[in-house]
């Protein structure tokens, strides 16, 4: 990919936020909160780092990106449309019968999607498989995975965490979208996770903590990941669920609820769309 500047990445993220609001509003369903918290990282990854080919989404030697928190699909679809894997018209098929934009990201339905998610806790193991495959192939391609903080409560995440270090998978790169909220409530209420970076370091991962909405820090973290080659690397991104739309920000209600007509108007105006 060509180098996108920081301001271009920020502008891409703003456009994606608009699409996330529109998609969930149109469907009157779906997950805006976790889409808005992940979107800056997704834009930086696709705009700045991932070696992928929009003309050939199944290019065998592409970097993989696995959105393990597959409910946050509107964010992924918005980025795939910005990149040209799918058209902006395709975004209207979100949660619509026959649409490429299934409720949860699905590799059988949508070009550019590398993993069929929807069940939490599965993507890191899958990403590890892709990383092992790259190693056996002698390829320098990387396997990038994103999980949610609530998702981290699944035991399978820690099975993958342990085995990826055992196998010294320097080509496995993980982002944790730490927005502090899961389905029912704040993580603090549902399941306290205490010192998250310490947990990952104690498993042997290279760990970096960033502000997941600061594009400079995100790009810096992606470059930092490239310097780690002897073990897996994880970026713990502190984010705000619903980031960019005031009434969704840090509000558990917008984990899985769509904006109403009036709320959409407000959201779009906050995102710089004039009525």
């Amino acid at each position, binding site marked *: 990919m060509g180098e996108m500047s920081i301001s271009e990445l920020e502008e891409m993220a703003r456009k994606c936020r608009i699409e996330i609001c529109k998609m969930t509003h149109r*469907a009157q*369903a*779906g997950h805006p909160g976790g889409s808005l918290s992940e979107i800056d990282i997704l834009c930086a990854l696709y705009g700045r780092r991932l070696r992928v080919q929009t003309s050939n989404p199944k290019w065998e030697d592409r970097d993989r990106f696995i959105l393990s928190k*597959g409910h946050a699909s509107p964010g992924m679809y918005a980025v795939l449309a910005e990149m040209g894997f799918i058209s902006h018209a395709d975004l209207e098929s979100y*949660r*619509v*019968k*026959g*649409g490429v934009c*299934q*409720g*949860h990201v*699905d590799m059988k*339905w949508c070009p550019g999607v590398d993993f*069929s*998610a*929807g*069940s*939490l*806790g599965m993507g890191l193991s899958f990403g590890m498989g892709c990383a092992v495959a790259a190693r056996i192939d002698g390829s320098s391609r990387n396997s990038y995975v994103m999980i949610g903080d*609530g*998702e981290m*409560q*699944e*035991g399978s995440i820690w099975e993958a965490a342990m085995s990826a270090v055992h196998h010294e998978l320097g080509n496995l790169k993980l982002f944790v979208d730490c927005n502090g909220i*899961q*389905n*029912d409530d704040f993580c603090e*209420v*549902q*399941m306290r996770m205490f010192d998250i970076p310490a947990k990952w370091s104690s498993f042997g991962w290279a760990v970096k903590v960033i502000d997941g909405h600061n594009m400079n820090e995100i790009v810096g973290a992606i470059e930092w990941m490239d310097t780690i080659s002897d073990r897996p690397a994880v970026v713990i991104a502190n984010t705000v669920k619903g980031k960019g739309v005031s009434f969704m920000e840090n509000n558990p209600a917008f984990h899985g609820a769509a904006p109403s007509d009036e709320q959409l108007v407000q959201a779009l105006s906050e995102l710089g769309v004039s009525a």
Partner: protein
Amino acid sequence: MSRMAATRDGYGDALLALADNPKVVVLEADLGKSTKSLYFRKAHPERTISCGIGEQNMLLVGAGLASSGFIPFASTFAIFTERAFEQMRNGVARPNLAVHVCGSHGGTHTGTDGSSAQSIEDLAIYRTLPNVVVMHPCDDVSTKALTMQLPELGGPSYMRTARNKTPVLYDGRENEIKIGKGVELIEGKDVAIIACGVLVHEAIAAAKTLEEAGVSATVVDMHTLKPLDGELIESLAEKCGAVVTAEDHSIIGGLGGAVAEHLISTRPVPMERIGVQDRFGESAGAEEMLEMMGLKSHHIVDAAKRAIARKA
């Protein structure tokens, strides 16, 4: 129009009603807002155990509680109970510990979430486990009535509830609901339609269409798949001479499988199964899904005619 309600609300109401029993405890895996165990959590936080997004942990915490004299009710989406299937098998069913699992949002009727969320195999897999009672009620009243009977059971259970609202059939009739006893909703003599869950309503609609065509159909709400009401099934096979099963579930191993297994060694008659044809679903509206998967009343009507035509 009858009252509309979701079966998951019947489950939530039942947990609240059961709370008088101090041994009743509720386990959640971050889906209490969806399964409706949140009603209990709000009223009795001290007896609600949040297991985070950790279904495997939840099932075995439930087993430990059951072995200590408590009556645990654990819920999540039907599909995510399946992640803990082996925990259910080895940690719950094998020692016969009375953990009551509720899987909500079952079937393709769950809609636009898509195939990852649409459990179409839960009834089949839990039915294979010794000691486990398996239920899939069709309205909120019967869901509540069945749930209320679970503390007396003394062994484990699995109940599937659904996300969306459906017509209520049993207002004022909760006494007719007994674990293990099918309910004859419509009596007829030409074909017996045996259904569970959301498809009970499609079966009723099918019976009406069939009546207009001069075919008299029995409709049974088989809310309990295990133990199966074999006596009722045999008597209907005898009386009608043809059977159709209907479920929002794979045609493999669910209600259709259970009824076929029973009839093949008791009273074999022509039988047709309405269910998901060994495929995964996709994102679409609840009604669109039923149509796409061949689960609507007109599909049941066609199946009934096929079964009748096969009578000797």
